[in-house]
């Protein structure tokens, strides 16, 4: 105990070092814990299944035609036939005046299931929550999870104004209803919004006996189908990639944190070599010393992990609504925003940090304990030791890069892809000291002998690579990740933008079809120059390559160059288009190819009427979480002659007044807003969804940069502790304070810039890895990279700026100290 106290006294004298060790542990934990908690929360939500007023339906009745709504009298008829496990549901996405898309659920509280089939014993629930009183009658209520309320920057009682000018019911923050991203209101209130159809999106089927559910299936009208919750796509499976990516970001921050821990430990042990030597001379054994130092680390670990975990949980609570929005938009999967976060295992971060810290302390500990008792410690940064260490790191780095390249080529597994990405990042970072040293050596040759100060600066910088390399590596790691992710997101956005431009071949899109069958006649009369294309859509299931039965969307493509050219094929032979138009084959989406495993050239079974049809080509289908097959309109019609059009596309010559055409069509068919949308609005909506989807990624990305900033600040501060003597020497040589300051800043800026030399190529490589390996494996989408150098220049400025800031504060302190004091301080170490 006495021993630990003696050792800990060091931190009293150098509190900053203790603080930096703690910061390292916290940093390693925050994002790791944050992403772990988010993932655990989402999994808990998936495990619970979709819930409505605390009741989980056994399934839903849906219209057989995708996206078609159900007439309410279908529902009433089924209830009148005695199927009391049914409840109506209307889903509606509305647009708020500020452009935010809001997903609303309309339910009938009178029909929601009661606990158990039979009535429960006792007096039932005695909760008297006045919220219900207002739910079903004017002015109604809009129930919202408090997380969502914060996300929208609204408070209880507020009323959201829609783009139509109408007001939604007053908001009520509701606890414990697993609401998540969606908001809940009375179905009557929802249908009262102008333009909302008096139809149902689905009929919820609540649990009943197997016989009763079979009876229900047998009594369904032709156009309805019963989709059991068990048969619905498993959200956990669907979102696996997303959660893995999230975990990977957490792990990356963890690695940055581990660098910081190593850095802090190395300095702390090095500084205490003299103390350790004295203790050894006083008779303390190595074993006792090692035990004391390990106990000290355990104390730091416990404090740092708890603090890091707590911060991580706060971060998770803050990010969860964003994650919920992403999942909703990306996968149509909804997670709950809990009132309190599920307790997720703190053990894993603790264990990981513990193991990492143990590894980190191993080398500095051994070096400190093995110091010969009668020697002073100045040999620490000796040239041989450093260059040997750098050689090992370079070899390891090259090996990691090789591994990454091999994995990039061969993997189709997300875990391996992410491992490859980690190898790429670490490999790049391990090469950093060697690359920097090589650059300094190169500079040294170019500098004329009479530029003494510059030569000194170079020599000093080379020396600096020893103690500072870890901090620089941590910063470089974060910068490479940041640059890579930024390039990836921007490239993906640009690709989506161009893809939307190409794919939206028509000018107006109309959703829903049966009542619009005479749209051709209407347009021939009103606007003879325009043409109409029917769009068909159907859901089927087929066995993918991995024996799994997967849902497949079948969509039709109108004939004619305008439409066939709107689909860009990824490597298909020149006859593909002709064969496609002749109905001799199909196109498949990139996801169908990459994830579900159908190969170009392979034959697939489309429908009963046609035998096996070859896959003629692969097209990109960004944002679609399920596989899609595209067939010509004629082929679709011959497969499913009874299928009504799911919508129409209207197109015509340039210069057409589309607003007027829109008005004519919606007046004629009495179409509500949302059923008819023009190309421009559709594209804007698509890109808005994209931006919201990547909001969480961008937030996490910014956080890693922040982590890097903290890291570099800690490291530079720690290094400057050790630079006192060197500054004293310079001062003694007559170099002024101002000159010394300039030298220091110049030195670190050069180091920062040189790091950027590594960040640029490896950031690009990482982006390429994400775009061509990780995203295709995770989502089935690939996209060309857009090399945006402007963005890297901004990053460089940011890096140098944050580095300068990190240098300035410790430097100011250093410069304030008088040379005499510096020399005194030097001798006391």
């Amino acid at each position, binding site marked *: 105990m006495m021993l630990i106290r003696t050792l800990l006294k060091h931190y009293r004298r150098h509190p900053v070092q203790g603080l930096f060790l703690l910061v390292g542990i916290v940093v390693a934990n925050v994002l790791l814990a944050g992403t772990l908690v988010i993932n655990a929360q989402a999994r808990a939500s998936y495990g619970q299944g979709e819930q409505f007023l*605390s009741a989980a339906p056994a399934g839903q009745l849906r219209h057989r035609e995708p996206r078609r709504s159900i007439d309410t009298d279908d529902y009433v008829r089924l209830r009148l036939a005695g199927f009391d496990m049914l409840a109506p549901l209307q889903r509606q996405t509305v647009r708020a005046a500020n452009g935010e898309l809001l997903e609303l659920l309309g339910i009938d509280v009178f029909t929601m299931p009661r606990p158990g089939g039979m009535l429960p014993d006792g007096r039932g629930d005695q909760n*008297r929550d*006045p919220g219900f009183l207002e739910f079903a009658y004017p002015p109604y209520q809009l129930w919202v999870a408090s997380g969502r309320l914060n996300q929208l920057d609204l408070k209880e009682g507020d009323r959201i104004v829609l783009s139509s000018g109408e007001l939604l019911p007053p908001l009520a923050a509701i606890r414990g209803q697993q609401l998540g991203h969606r908001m809940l209101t009375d179905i009557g*209130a929802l249908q*009262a919004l102008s333009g909302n159809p*008096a139809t149902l999106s689905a009929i919820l089927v609540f649990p009943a*006996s197997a016989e009763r559910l079979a009876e229900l299936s047998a009594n369904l009208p032709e156009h309805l189908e019963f989709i059991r919750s068990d048969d619905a796509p498993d959200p956990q499976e669907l979102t696996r990639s997303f959660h893995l990516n999230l975990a990977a970001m957490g792990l990356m921050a963890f690695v940055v944190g581990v660098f910081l821990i190593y850095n802090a430990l190395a300095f702390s042990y090095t500084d205490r070599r003299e103390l350790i030597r004295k203790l050894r001379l006083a008779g303390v054994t190595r074993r006792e010393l090692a035990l004391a130092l390990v106990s000290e680390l355990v104390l730091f670990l416990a404090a740092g992990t708890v603090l890091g975990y707590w911060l991580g949980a706060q971060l998770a609570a803050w990010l969860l609504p964003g994650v919920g929005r992403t999942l909703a938009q990306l996968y149509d999967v909804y997670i709950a925003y809990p009132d309190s976060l599920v307790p997720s295992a703190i053990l894993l971060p603790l264990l990981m940090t513990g193991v990492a810290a143990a590894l980190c302390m191993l080398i500095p500990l051994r070096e400190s304990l093995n110091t010969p008792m009668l020697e002073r410690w100045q040999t620490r940064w000796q040239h041989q030791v450093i260059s040997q260490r750098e050689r090992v790191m370079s070899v390891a780095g090259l090996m990691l890069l090789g591994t990454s390249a091999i994995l990039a080529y061969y993997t189709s597994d997300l875990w391996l892809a992410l491992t490859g990405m980690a190898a790429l990042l670490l490999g790049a970072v391990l090469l950093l000291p060697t690359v920097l040293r090589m650059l300094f050596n190169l500079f040294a040759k170019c500098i004329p002998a009479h530029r003494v100060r510059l030569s000194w600066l170079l020599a000093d910088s080379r020396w600096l690579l020893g103690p500072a390399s870890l901090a620089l590596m941590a910063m470089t790691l974060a910068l490479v990740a940041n640059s890579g992710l930024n390039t990836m997101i921007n490239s993906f956005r640009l690709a989506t933008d161009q893809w939307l431009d190409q794919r939206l071949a028509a000018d107006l899109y109309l959703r829903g079809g049966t009542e619009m069958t005479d749209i051709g006649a209407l347009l021939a009369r009103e606007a003879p120059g325009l043409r109409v294309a029917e769009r068909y859509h159907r859901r089927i299931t087929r066995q993918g390559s991995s024996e799994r039965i997967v849902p497949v969307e079948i969509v039709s493509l109108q004939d004619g160059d305008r439409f066939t050219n709107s689909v860009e094929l990824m490597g298909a032979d020149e006859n593909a288009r002709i064969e496609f138009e002749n109905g001799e084959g199909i196109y498949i989406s990139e996801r169908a190819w990459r994830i579900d495993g159908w190969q170009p050239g392979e034959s697939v079974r489309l429908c009963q009427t046609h035998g096996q049809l070859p896959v003629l080509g692969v097209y990109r289908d960004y944002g679609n979480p399920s596989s899609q097959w595209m067939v010509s309109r004629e082929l679709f019609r011959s497969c499913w002659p009874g299928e009504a059009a799911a919508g129409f596309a209207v197109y015509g010559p340039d210069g057409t007044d589309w607003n007027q055409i829109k008005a004519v069509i919606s007046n004629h068919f009495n179409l509500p807003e949302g059923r008819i949308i023009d190309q421009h609005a559709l594209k804007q909506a698509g890109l808005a969804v994209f931006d919201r989807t990547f909001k969480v990624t961008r937030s996490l990305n910014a956080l890693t940069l922040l982590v890097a900033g903290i890291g570099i600040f800690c490291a530079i501060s720690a290094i400057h502790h050790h630079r006192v003597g060197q500054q004293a020497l310079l001062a003694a040589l007559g170099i002024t304070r101002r000159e010394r300051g300039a030298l220091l800043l110049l030195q670190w800026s050069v180091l920062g810039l040189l790091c950027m030399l590594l960040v640029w190529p490896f950031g690009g490589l990482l982006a390429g890895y994400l775009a061509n390996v990780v995203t295709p494996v995770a989502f089935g989408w690939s996209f060309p990279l857009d090399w945006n150098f402007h963005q890297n220049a901004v990053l460089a400025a940011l890096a140098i700026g944050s580095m300068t800031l990190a240098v300035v504060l410790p430097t100011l302190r250093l410069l304030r100290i008088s040379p005499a004091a510096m020399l005194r301080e030097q001798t006391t170490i």
Partner: protein
Amino acid sequence: MTLPSLYSVFLLPALLMVAGCGVNEAPEQTSDFAVLAQSAEGYTSARPGYALEFPRDHGPHPDYRIEWWYLTANLQDSNSRHYGAQWTLFRVAVQPPGAHQPGNAWQSSQVYMAHFAITSPEGHVAFQRYARGGEHGGISRSGARNQPFAAWIDDWVLSSTGSDWLPMAVRAQQGNYSISLELASDKPLILQGDAGFSQKHPAGGGSFYYSQPFLTASGELELDGQRIPVSGLAWLDREWSSQFLQGEQVGWDWFSLHLESGEKLMLFQLRQRPGDFQTGTFRHGVLISPQGGKTLLKPEHIIFQVLEQTPVAGRNLPMRWRIELPQIERILEIGALHSDQWMNVDFPYWEGAVTVNGSGPQNSGRGYMELTGYAAD
């Protein structure tokens, strides 16, 4: 927050206010009383002088706050085992007429609630459902109409089998339990109270109330999947009002009895305070001759005496009664078929089959008893 609280807060007080069912004096329920004190402002009031007219008044009266179609049946099977069946549809207007113009069918101000229960020698089951009024594509999950008569929630239906009001049929099913009975009578219906206006308070409040106590019932019950042919006697009550109970009235004891003499006897008392059977109660009784002639009983000549209280669902409920009716020289002893006929619904009450014992056919028979407003211990 779970769903039941919706019903206990939103719907129940509205029903309680009029029906007095399940009023509970437990302190935590004071919020119910606040609602109970609501006035019937905006709704049409039930007042003496209104001439009931049929088939018009078999249908719903949406301008009144509350209304019900209430059927009870005393049945027996071929082995002379006794059963009871209850089917009730309540209609509640949650907003006064004209208070809110519904923009769509869901926004109807009419809410329906139904109960159905079966009592067998082995036990008692009770079920409930809710629905809003409002038509979707010409059909409605719940409602009532006068010609041809029907009252329903989903597949729980009481309806005329032909164009006349009688005969009618009642059907309801929930899981493995169902009732399916044909109901017939050639006797006239009975206008209760003063030509159909039934006073419920000394100050004059009340409801419109008529009955068909002469129904014969035959059909089958399904109990846990087992179908049992039954036959017996049934009693249909129809009542509607906007303010039925006054604030200080907390519950009632109600009897509808088929006497072996062919007479029918209806008695009730509205209790002012819990457990007080003697003072402040409002009593009413009528004896109906086999031909439909009415003898109104003077309140002071209706003497209720509780012979035995039994713990049921955490309450002490009077399960055996002695009723003296000196005006018509009757002394009846009434006992529950069994005490477990608790209606464990959102606002629970006791409703069940009883036997009437006394000397001679004029003092014995079968019937139904309803006990509401007893506080849990």
